[in-house]
């Protein structure tokens, strides 16, 4: 098990190198001179030359990249063009907000999706099934930021129950987390339902029923545990869209996370900041994917035996 984790962590290194290289070269190819952007059009050629040298922008791209990577290993993400402050300070002070929001959204989506999926499967082809699957279909089709705006309109502006923006209190988590979690909820519920439907038809379920196990125990202990793998897979796949979605959600609710930071950095053409945000997002994404893979082992002993 530990050997497997170490192997997977080591496999992350080339991916992170590849990602940073790709994003670094894409962003560095952006037209426009960052030094002119900082100093303004009135700057003298001497000033421009001095700052260019100071920022290391006169060196070849590959050298700049290697320097960036050496910094990254030490937790240094460069200096932001817009604020002239270290990118790492800004990114790490904002990161907890994005993490907390994503976690709450994931909890909300799983807490809603699994019961919904199970009930829909158990009551297949009834009104309950149809209604919940219709809700799930709507959830998949709804653009997240539209849902976020509608929730804000109804619950903050009309009813005044929750704050419109910011992250001041626990109430401010409710609307963003629900908006962010709803889309994932929908696909998780659909997968749970179809996986449960498949499991319920298995022989061991019939055996359990025929030896007199009560219905709720059959569903909880015999069926659900075996139906969990596809649900975990979908939850894992959703993490990418969750991180992408957090950018929109944070923009709508003026949430102080790195998603909004990244949008602001793009508008300000702040290359080091965009790069820093992307690198952090990608590292998170890779680590969460690894955690999801490890989770399989805990749910299914057959998979766990393959790790050793």
């Amino acid at each position: 098990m530990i050997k497997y984790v170490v192997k997977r962590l080591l496999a992350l290194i080339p991916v992170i190198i590849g990602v940073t290289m790709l994003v670094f070269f894409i962003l560095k190819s952006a037209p426009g001179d960052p030094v002119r952007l900082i100093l303004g059009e009135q700057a003298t050629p001497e000033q421009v030359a001095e700052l260019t040298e100071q920022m290391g922008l006169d060196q070849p791209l590959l050298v700049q990249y290697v320097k960036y990577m050496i910094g990254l290993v030490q937790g240094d993400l460069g200096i932001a063009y817009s604020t002239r402050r270290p990118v790492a300070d800004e990114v790490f002070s904002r990161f907890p907000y994005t993490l907390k929001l994503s976690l709450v959204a994931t909890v909300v989506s799983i807490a809603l999706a699994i019961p919904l999926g199970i009930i829909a499967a158990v009551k297949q082809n009834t009104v309950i099934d149809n209604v919940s699957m219709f809700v799930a279909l709507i959830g998949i089709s709804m653009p997240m930021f539209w849902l976020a705006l509608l929730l804000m309109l109804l619950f903050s502006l009309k009813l005044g129950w929750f704050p419109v923006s910011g992250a001041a209190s626990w109430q401010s988590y409710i609307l963003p987390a629900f908006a962010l979690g709803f889309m994932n909820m929908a696909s998780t519920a659909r997968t749970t339902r179809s996986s449960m439907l498949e499991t319920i038809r298995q022989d061991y379920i019939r055996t359990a029923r025929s030896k007199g196990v009560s219905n709720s125990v059959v569903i909880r202990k015999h069926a659900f545990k075996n139906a969990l793998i596809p649900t975990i897979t979908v939850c894992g796949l959703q993490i990418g869209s969750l991180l992408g979605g957090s950018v929109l959600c944070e923009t709508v609710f003026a949430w102080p996370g790195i998603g909004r930071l990244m949008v602001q950095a793009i508008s300000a053409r702040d290359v080091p900041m965009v790069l820093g945000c992307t690198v952090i997002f990608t590292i998170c994404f890779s680590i969460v994917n690894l955690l999801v893979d490890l989770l399989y082992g805990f749910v299914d002993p057959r998979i766990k035996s393959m790790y050793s």
Partner: protein
Amino acid sequence: MQNTTAPAVSRAEAVKKYKKTSQFGETMKRMARNKAAVLGLIILVALILMSLCADFLYDYDTYVVKQNIADRLQWPSAQHPLGTDEFGRDLLARIVHGSRTSLLLSFAAVALSLAVGGFLGAIAGYYGKWLDNLLMRIMDVILAIPMTLFAMVIVAALGASTLNLVIALSVSQIPTFARVVRGAVLTVKDSEYIEAARAIGQRDLSIISAHVLPNCMAPIIVQTTLRIAATITSTASLSFLGLGVTAPTPEWGALLSTGRTFIRDSSYLTFFPGLFIMITILSLNLLGDGLRDALDPRLR
């Protein structure tokens, strides 16, 4: 008399009964039984017709772009069924013309990434070995970045414009298509008919295009439908963030972004563009699910 005609009739019936219908026909028949998929198809066709006829419904210059401050921010009425925006322009006219931008951009982006990703996936799957390894490791790197973020990075580098949006959306989806096509190619490449084609000396490229790809269309078609839905959301998302289509061109996400400014008193500006996005994606999802059920033999 009856004895002589009876065998002829039954023979005709027998021929009819055993006559092979095309795979396309079979699939369409299965699709037609799926009410949700048919509904999705009808909505989608209606939306495409709407975008094709946009110029006949509303003249672009007089209704969509020309400002009319006297009529600004009017709630829906008989004259303006969905109300007017902050420059007094009819929202319905802008949504109808916006469907053009949204649908065309998404179709173009998906077509581009299908072409590039499909080509890469096909050669990776067909040739295997080091080429497969190299291409798929590159795809893994791109897939390690959440898709929306990668599209944002590309737009950040190229600058916000309609063309750059299409490039960003298609590049970020290349790995998805490469993987789907590669997987599909792997399932058929060792079949006897491929070996036969190779034995009679056909060139690799013509084997791939004439024998391999036509036999693994099902997952590609399904994935394409679902990806168009996802791309419409991404197009709208990036425009909403101000990284896509710029004013005054109407686009659904950009319309929503404007609506957001006036959400307190003119909530219809937010509600209707989003509703159209949702209906479009809903129809594509229904169609995609239906196609998957109709095309996937394992689920029959």
